[in-house]
């Protein structure tokens, strides 16, 4: 590791809390500042930790797997939207490296408890909740934790803790206990580590919940500068993110459908008649179901849209649906009743499942019924057809309880394919992680994002191309040209953003772009990271790629499912497909710009450039 000629004067605590659940041994470890110099924090530090501690033969739900949580220098900082922290572990959904991020209060409060990172290893002798208050750790053992929904477990946890200063929580649900490969960790009252199945890893350690609080104020280099930057950011975001406050990310349902990139009926089509689709657009959600806004830690935007169903068969359902959840649980399942989508979102949250993969799995089940490949006899008597909102919600319980088809569906994409290879054509995934709510045939750049993302098909880690493919005028969304450069840049930026601790929705307020011109990290840490941020992002992507190489990934696995090679049958993207030729053209450009060989692996020269020679083992 290259030593930094830098002394940080704020932003970091340099302390990592490690809890061995088997022995209940607790250790506080020192973090080398040189690691922050090279990897910044959050996702970068998670990848470095994973490289060192999670060997390729570790089983995701085996006792030898570990799970780590990592703050960035901005997590909990006295700015705005400094809510993010990262999780790293081996994914039960993909069988490989997982990075995930969440908002909420846990990351900031972990820092107030005195730590930049938390590592959990081993397996608790009994079901437990881990309570961290400042430097002290205690365990609330109780076999009755098992079986509780996330909302009930959180309430019970908080009821048993001392009052006063607020606690932040992480909780898993019944799905995680039942080893559902796409189970989530719910953070506080509605944010989540959704993708990749981190919830099942936590449950495999018999940890039902965690709570944290503290009263440490970590050092900040220039508090006056922080105040000035915050004032400017609030002003900027007041205008640029006004729609986020009013409609949340649901505002994108209508446009993505209008552009023919909305998955409908499990990606068999990419568009729905606008009148039908209007049942699940943001304006409908606002008019009929909106209750109030929800803000994460120190957020001035409050993009969360709390909704509640007041009448009808889903009366009482309440959730905070985001674009991806609506798209995948709604149109991709042929459901255009927002009440059903809210109820399904709530079921995912309370049972503890990733809404995106759960929605994809519902789409799979519905298509299997459509094609006559399964029947009610295979599913405890329940028929599940496209457009059936009631069955949509019921089936989610089957997933979590491993009932009926839930027995196999709970294994996730790769587990299903191993058991029923004939179903593979109906599962939209890359390296085991299912698609977000964009069909790459409508935006070819998203195909490259899904194929090369460090954790499998992901619109965030892989790079969100949709906006860029329409804005610049330099690329055509239906062409491979220029997508390699676009995706590389988006991934590099996302990797460093994920390492700061700032929410991506607010990053524009601090000029954290592909050409960062910001004083915010200088104000926090006393070191001007800005000129090196993109380089740091690139270093993280290369380290992640070396992790994946160690886990068997190369070009052969940078793929899209066969349906993407079939032309879209109707709508605004009719006739378009991501053929293997198109994907190969995008991959060739991408690999070349990354300094990777034709097989998609970093060259020795590239590794040297980013001080990653230590990965050449």
């Amino acid at each position: 590791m290259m030593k930094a000629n830098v002394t940080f004067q704020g932003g970091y605590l340099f302390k990592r809390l490690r809890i061995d659940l088997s022995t209940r041994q607790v250790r506080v470890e020192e973090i080398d500042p040189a690691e922050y110099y090279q990897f910044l924090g959050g996702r970068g530090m998670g990848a470095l930790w994973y490289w060192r501690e999670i060997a390729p033969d570790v089983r995701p739900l085996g006792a030898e797997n570990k799970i780590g949580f990592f703050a960035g220098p901005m997590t909990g900082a006295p700015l705005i939207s400094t809510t993010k922290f990262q999780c790293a572990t081996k994914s039960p959904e993909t069988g490989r490296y997982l990075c995930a991020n969440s908002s909420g209060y846990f990351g900031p409060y972990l820092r107030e408890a005195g730590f930049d990172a938390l590592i959990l290893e081993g397996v608790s002798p009994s079901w437990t909740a881990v309570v961290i208050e400042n430097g002290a750790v205690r365990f609330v053992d109780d076999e009755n934790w098992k079986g509780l929904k996330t909302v009930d477990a959180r309430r019970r946890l908080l009821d048993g803790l001392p009052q006063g200063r607020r606690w932040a929580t992480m909780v898993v649900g019944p799905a995680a206990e039942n080893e559902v490969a796409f189970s989530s960790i719910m953070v506080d009252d509605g944010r989540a580590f959704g993708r990749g199945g981190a919830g099942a890893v936590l449950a495999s350690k018999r940890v039902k919940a965690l709570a944290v609080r503290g009263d440490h104020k970590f050092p900040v280099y220039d508090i006056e500068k922080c105040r000035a930057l915050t004032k400017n950011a609030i002003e900027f975001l007041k205008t640029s993110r006004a729609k986020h406050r009013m409609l949340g990310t649901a505002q994108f349902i209508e446009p993505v459908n209008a552009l023919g990139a909305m998955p409908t009926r499990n990606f068999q089509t990419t568009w729905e008649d606008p009148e039908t689709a209007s049942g699940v657009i943001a304006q409908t959600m606002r008019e009929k179901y909106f209750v109030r806004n929800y803000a994460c830690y120190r957020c001035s935007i409050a993009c969360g849209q709390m909704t509640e169903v007041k009448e009808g068969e889903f009366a009482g359902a309440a959730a905070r649906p985001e674009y991806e959840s609506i798209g995948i649980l709604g149109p991709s399942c042929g459901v255009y009743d927002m009440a059903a989508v809210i109820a399904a979102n709530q079921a995912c949250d309370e049972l503890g499942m990733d809404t995106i993969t759960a929605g994809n799995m519902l789409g799979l089940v519905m298509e299997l019924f459509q094609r006559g490949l399964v029947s009610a006899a295979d599913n405890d008597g329940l028929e599940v057809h496209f457009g059936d909102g009631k069955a949509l919600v019921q089936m989610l319980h089957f997933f979590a309880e491993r009932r009926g088809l839930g027995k196999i569906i709970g294994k996730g994409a790769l587990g299903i394919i191993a058991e029923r290879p004939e179903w593979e054509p109906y599962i939209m995934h890359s390296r085991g992680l299912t698609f977000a709510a964009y069909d790459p045939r409508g935006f070819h750049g998203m195909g490259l994002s899904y194929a090369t993302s460090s954790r499998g098909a992901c619109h965030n880690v892989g790079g969100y191309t949709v906006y860029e493919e329409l804005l610049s005028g330099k690329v055509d969304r239906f062409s491979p040209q220029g997508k390699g450069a676009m995706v590389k840049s988006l991934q590099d930026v996302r990797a460093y953003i994920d390492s700061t601790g700032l929410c991506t929705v607010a990053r524009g307020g601090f000029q954290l772009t592909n050409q960062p011109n910001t004083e915010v990290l200088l104000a926090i840490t006393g070191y001007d990271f800005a000129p090196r941020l993109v380089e740091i992002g690139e270093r993280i992507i290369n380290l992640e790629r070396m992790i994946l190489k160690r886990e068997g990934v190369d070009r052969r696995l940078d793929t899209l499912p066969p349906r993407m090679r079939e032309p879209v049958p109707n709508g605004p993207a009719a006739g378009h497909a991501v053929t293997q030729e198109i994907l190969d053209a995008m991959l060739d450009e991408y690999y070349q710009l990354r300094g990777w060989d034709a097989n998609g692996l970093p060259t020795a020269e590239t590794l040297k450039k980013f001080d990653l020679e230590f990965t050449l083992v």
Partner: protein
Amino acid sequence: MTQVGLWVVGGLDLALSGRRTTIDFPDGAAVGDIPDRLLEVGIDAHSPKYLVVLNGLGWRQFPPEQKLKDGDVLLVIPPLMGG
């Protein structure tokens, strides 16, 4: 006159929001004339608050001198982000 469809979606705070309508361009109007014509109906094509799409593609993708024709469609949407 050239009649071009106009559809504003995504809950934008615009008078035409949610409506499918048609706007007239003078004969011979080209892609480069789009911003001025949209401004007349209250839409700033250069604003970061909007994305303007012509026939399904970013309008800047077309040569400014390319002539508009009857049946072309402009879609105005918010700047897209993941969720």
